[in-house]
């Protein structure tokens, strides 16, 4: 007899694991689905010469939750600078936690009700070089895009709240 957890595991579907290279950065998503909730787990492989201290995703549509790498020292923030878009960002709190040159880090995770599609990512290294590219992430169906004047603002407010909550968690650590 399958336990519930086993059932969940069985229901998980590996949808995509293709890495996307942008200059000195490779971003690889691992996507699973369970009961209509998609989990996107990103891995960053730094092939450049400077450490990477931030990773951001521009997502079209709502995000249920987000979490950081398993290693300590990364904070999470969300905002909605553009109507309909949620900007999820991760930032390390110190150079020692950065994705070191020729190193990699995984666990940049978000969950969403939306299925995979193209999303933009942005990475900053310690010299403030920016690496932008496209990876796979949650994309809301066009019909469910919130109206600019309501949904996005709500998202921003919620996003900032989430950032505050996460910040407190980070501080506690």
């Amino acid at each position, binding site marked *: 007899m399958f336990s519930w957890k086993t059932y969940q595991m069985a229901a998980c579907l590996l949808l995509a694991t293709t890495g996307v290279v942008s200059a000195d950065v490779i971003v690889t998503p691992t996507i699973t689905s369970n009961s209509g909730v998609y989990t996107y787990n990103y891995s960053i492989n730094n092939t450049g010469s400077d450490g990477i*201290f931030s990773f*951001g995703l521009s997502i079209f549509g709502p995000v249920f939750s987000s979490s950081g790498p398993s290693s300590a020292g990364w*904070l999470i923030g969300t905002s909605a*600078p553009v109507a309909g878009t949620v900007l999820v960002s991760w930032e390390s709190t110190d150079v020692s936690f950065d994705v070191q040159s020729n190193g990699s880090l995984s666990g940049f995770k978000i969950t969403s009700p939306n299925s995979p599609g193209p999303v933009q990512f942005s990475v*900053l290294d310690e010299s403030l070089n920016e690496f932008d590219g496209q990876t796979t992430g949650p994309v809301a169906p066009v019909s469910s895009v919130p109206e600019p*004047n309501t949904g996005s603002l709500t998202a921003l407010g919620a996003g900032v709240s989430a950032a505050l909550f996460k910040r407190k968690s980070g501080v506690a650590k």
Partner: protein
Amino acid sequence: MTNTALLCLLANGRSVVPEIPRPATTFPPPLRRFLHWMWSTAIPLGVFIGNGVAVRAQTVTYNYNGNAFDSSLCRATAQLTCASGNVSGSVTFNSLPANYTGLVAPPSSYCNSGYAAPCIQTIYLSGAGSTLSYPNSQVLPPLVYWYPLGAQFYFQNGVITAWNVELHVSYSCTGTSGQPDFCPDDTDIFTFCSATSYNSIVGPYPCSQNTGQLPLIGDQANTVIGYQSSTAHGIYGSVNNNPGIWTLASTAPQSLLITSPSDNVKPQSQFVAVTGMTNPGDTVTFLVDGTSATYITVADQSGFWEQVILAGAGAHTIQAQDGSTLSNVLHVTTFPPTTAPYVQNTPYNLLRTADIVLTHGLNSPQVALFGPDYTHAAIFIGGDANGTPLIAEAVKAAEAGALGQVRAAPLELSTVFTDGTYIAFFRPLIALSTPTRQSIAAAAKKYTSQGLSYWADSDFLPFSLAWTMWNPVAHAPLFTSRFNQDAAALLAKKTMTNRFICSTLVWRAYMDGTGNSIDISMPNNVRVLYGYLSPLLDPSFVSTLGPDFVLPETIGLNTTVLTRIF
């Protein structure tokens, strides 16, 4: 509409993009020297004149009497034949101060280009069966860096001491920087090399190998005098090391002129942006269709004036009036867009070049976020060649349409006109000289002519990162070094020139146009009054990041540098 403003929000970081260099010139060495004078001497001098004591300007005419060609110095080829003869002609300057010292040179040398005085009102030269005249000869619009007719005159105490007249055929093309640039297929008709000319693309070459279809004259130092027949396809001319001289023919009181736009233009607006010349400090009024209009403007200390006139749709005449003196008659036929203003009766006639326009955008999400008075920023950059008033602004892709995102939009097609529920005009507290205002507008034109984009979503990342690194309870960064890095990334976004939000475009134009002397982003007094962010956003966070971002509200609250004129 209107998220323009939204993204005049806050943002994120990347390395600063290098400055786009001043457009390369195709001009050969002698003319390059003149252009060097222009940048190093004429413009500063123009500023000096603009700010100094008014000097009575005049309309001055010089005649040119050339010596006979020295055919022995002509470099004939199989295609090119030397001819004998000489050149004569005249040039009339307008708004030329008495005892003027400095250069009259492109882009300010032609009165109808809309630039400040002094300027060349007419020039006529004839020789070897051909003529060269302005304004009849083609001169490219001011927005283009190239002039088929190039004429530079350097004055020392009111006397012409160096001069250069040339023709060159240029084509508008785009260089690697995305702006008008040197084109290998440009055909320059050089006029000032005795034996060998030099071109940055092809290197040294004999003067006589130039090709083209227009007549050419020469300069004061090393002169080729001759012309090229459009039918014979050969240069008939000779080298003359003994050029003629310019002799003062007449002086007269400053003429009252409408210098821009040229006659019989078709503005894509119900408004017409008009510029002209008269005596410095004089008050100019206007007749529209023969009837006195309510517009009044005052000429600056060089005699330059400008006015935006509401003409309405259809055919109209516009005339300037200075006392009892009437200017030339400007005939226009306007074709306004069908867009409707959100706010009626906005006094756009008050706008002067480089004025800042701030609006409260229709349904702007910024309002619900932090309660700003202003959600969009733009800059008035004068009229185009047709007299259509242009607004330089950066808007999001969804609002851009065919005009693009970082664009110079006809007034009625700008979001200022269509989306502004509340409109205000600002200009610096310290009055700017006309050349400085034109320099600011030129900077805005430079950026809006490159097809640039509005900020990408990721450009807002540094603000989000900085907020993540802020402790609102302690009113201080959680991790100072990382926060400082986020602030640096945010500053890099503010200063980058390959993408803009509305307020960074206006700020950048002022920085570039004033040599970084007018920073409208400081002090940054942005406040979070109400809205979703008000209970969350720590005021000390905003003030700490103040130098690193600029919003429309930043500009609107900057009473240290700016004053509101409407």
